[in-house]
């Protein structure tokens, strides 16, 4: 008799998701699915709105990384107002946006790692859930918890200084930015206090990378074996192959490191990427056209970015990057939990970039916006904290949006997340008739490695929990647990 287990809702992940696991007669995992069960419809209700409203409207998709949507939309609209792509803005416009974006990467990664992931590493997947949370971390590892909170705060303050508000600001406008960095904010961020300044952030970022490396040394087998599979990897890279999270050309490398999409202009993304719809989830399945839906899926996010780029253009992060790459002999890394390692290297990179930008005089003077010949279609891509984010808009003669297509990071990672869930479910649940809490958490650990943020993908409102249900061969519910 086959059985079906559902994990619903998924916890320490934003948005709503559920996992169903079908077991066969021997209680072995037959099929797994990560369902994103909510629908939000931003692509529809942005239609008819004036195009310049999009960056402020669509960022409401998410409260963790609104800046990514804000900037991706603004980049798309740069095309519409004739300001060109990425490098077409004034130095002030581009650098203020970059600072905002790296502040966003910094705070989002800090939230992801410290608040949502560190409990699993510090206490173990099978620890008591009453301790295995951020409060538990604060009680047992005070210094680490304080650093996590302060690092997130620093990123949020960068966003406030550039967008006007920590969450859902208005900084980026089509063709540029609406403000300079104020001298007061510059001083506050460079030399705010002993424990709150950019040098301290770099120091703490180095510290957390070291922390993970130590943890990895002691738990190599767990980290490496938790979920591994080869995949294609997608990200933007700078034209010279450097990591660039704000702008670049689109690159995909396969599991062997071979470039299968060779630094193409993302304005032509529809030539390369297609989205498949399935009847059991609202989330679509993007794939590379040239390889088809079976083989064309890819990973995005920190791990994919470290797999695609040739180098990181800041010295401390570059050093860590070299060490990271050496683990797999320079080949792309397919270990699911190495996402965290890659994420922490990106935190360090973001801190270094923020330091350079905060010291750049262009942020305090010059032209804020640029305008050129208007067009009726715009595409904006950037590397959001959790991966490549696509925004695509069309407008009519009356300046109203007529079409919007958003492919968010989580959607891009849909198949890899499903694969990881499948592997983890097999490792932890094969032969088990009853679902235990650690089993459910193991599945969540796999999802959290990619993304604590399912909400933006289709898109849920409110808190997100995961529920697991177990079904027998006749699809009768025999057990259901919520975490």
């Amino acid at each position, binding site marked *: 008799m086959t059985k079906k287990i559902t994990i619903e809702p998924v916890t320490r992940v934003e948005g709503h998701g559920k996992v169903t696991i079908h077991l066969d007669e021997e209680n072995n995992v037959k099929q797994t699915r990560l369902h994103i069960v909510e629908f939000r419809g931003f692509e529809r209700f942005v239609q*008819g*709105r*004036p195009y*310049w*409203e999009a*960056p*402020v*409207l669509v960022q*409401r998709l998410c409260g963790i990384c609104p800046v990514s949507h804000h900037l991706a939309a603004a980049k798309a609209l740069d095309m519409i*107002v004739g300001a060109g792509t990425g490098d077409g803005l004034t130095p002030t416009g581009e650098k203020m946006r970059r600072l905002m974006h790296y502040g966003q990467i910094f705070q989002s990664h800090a939230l992801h790692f410290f608040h949502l992931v560190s409990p699993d590493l510090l206490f173990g997947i099978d620890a008591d859930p009453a301790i295995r949370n951020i409060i538990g971390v604060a009680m047992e590892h005070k210094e680490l918890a304080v650093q996590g909170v302060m690092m997130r705060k620093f990123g949020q303050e960068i966003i406030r200084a550039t*967008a*006007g*508000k920590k969450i*859902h*600001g*208005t*900084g980026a*406008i*089509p063709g540029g930015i*609406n*403000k300079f960095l104020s001298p007061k904010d510059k001083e506050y961020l460079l030399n705010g206090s002993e424990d709150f300044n950019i040098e301290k952030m770099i120091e703490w970022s180095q510290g957390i990378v070291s922390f993970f490396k130590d943890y990895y040394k002691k738990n190599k087998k767990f980290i490496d074996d938790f979920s591994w599979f080869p995949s294609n990897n997608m990200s933007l890279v700078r034209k010279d192959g450097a990591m660039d999270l704000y702008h670049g050309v689109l690159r995909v490398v396969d599991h062997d490191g071979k470039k299968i999409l060779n630094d193409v202009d993302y304005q032509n993304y529809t030539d390369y990427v297609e989205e498949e719809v399935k009847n059991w989830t609202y989330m679509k399945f993007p794939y590379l056209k040239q390889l088809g839906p079976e083989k064309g899926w890819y990973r995005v996010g920190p791990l994919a970015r470290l797999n695609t780029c040739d180098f990181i253009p800041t010295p401390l992060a570059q050093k860590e990057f070299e060490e990271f790459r050496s683990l797999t002999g320079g080949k792309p890394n397919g270990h699911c939990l190495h996402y965290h390692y890659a994420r922490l290297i990106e935190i360090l990179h973001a801190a270094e970039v923020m330091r350079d930008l905060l010291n750049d005089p262009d942020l305090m003077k010059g032209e804020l916006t640029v305008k050129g010949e208007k067009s009726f279609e715009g595409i904006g891509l950037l590397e959001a904290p959790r991966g490549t984010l696509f925004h695509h808009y069309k407008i009519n003669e*009356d*300046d*109203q949006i007529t079409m919007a297509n958003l492919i968010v990071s989580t959607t891009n990672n849909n198949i890899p997340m499903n694969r990881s869930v499948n592997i983890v479910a097999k490792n932890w649940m094969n032969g088990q008739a009853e679902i235990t809490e650690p089993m459910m958490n193991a599945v969540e650990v796999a999802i959290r490695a990619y993304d604590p943020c399912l909400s933006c993908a289709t898109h849920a409102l409110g808190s997100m929990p995961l529920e697991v249900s177990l079904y027998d061969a006749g699809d009768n519910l025999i057990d259901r647990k919520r975490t």
Partner: protein
Amino acid sequence: MKGKIKIIIDGKECWAKPGQNVIDAARDNGIYIPSLCHVEGVKPAGSCRVCNVRIEGRNMTACTTPVADGMEIENDIPELNELRKAIIEVLFVSGNHFCPSCEKSGNCELQALAYRFRMMVPRFPYEFPIKGVDASSKYIYHDRNRCVMCKRCIRTITKDGKNVFAYSSRGGKHLHVVMDKELAAQMTEKEAQKAMDICPVGAILKKERGFYSPIGQRKYDTEPIGSDVEKNIDHLKQKEQ
């Protein structure tokens, strides 16, 4: 106070020009009476009712009531403020006022009044009207779903002596303000900006300029609506002395 008449607002002795309406007289004395439809120097319409004051026991709109010698006016009292708050809530629910994505946010008088009266959530059900959008003009995006029917645009925005905006479906269920497409097409950028500035909410937008004012530098970011009037008190006192 030569040529002026004495009125009492909330127990305070004030001086007003004969023929002046109560709202302007109060302002000249450093007293703020909230309003959405009143524009100084323009014939009052009395359409929003937010400026309700109590004169000799009766509720009257301060914008349409002329001062009279010895008139006693109640303005800043809990009962009236609660009534004003209710009116603001009615205006919120009868339009699609989604502040988070509205470019008028921070410069919007309806939003500013809601903050001043500490509106948390409207007590009335949302209407979600479908009155349509007219984006056909080169410089104006007219979102009728956000209109509060204050008639400011009808009374002030003209092109070659003709009104650009007017009521439509008067007497019907769906009274709304429409924009004359031909006149609107002839408007300059400057005139479009004037139309946007006169609108107390985000119904009339000047195209392609949204969100140019950063957060922190918008009209009501740092001080509540009415502060400019109330700040005048000290100035006026010095003047009297």
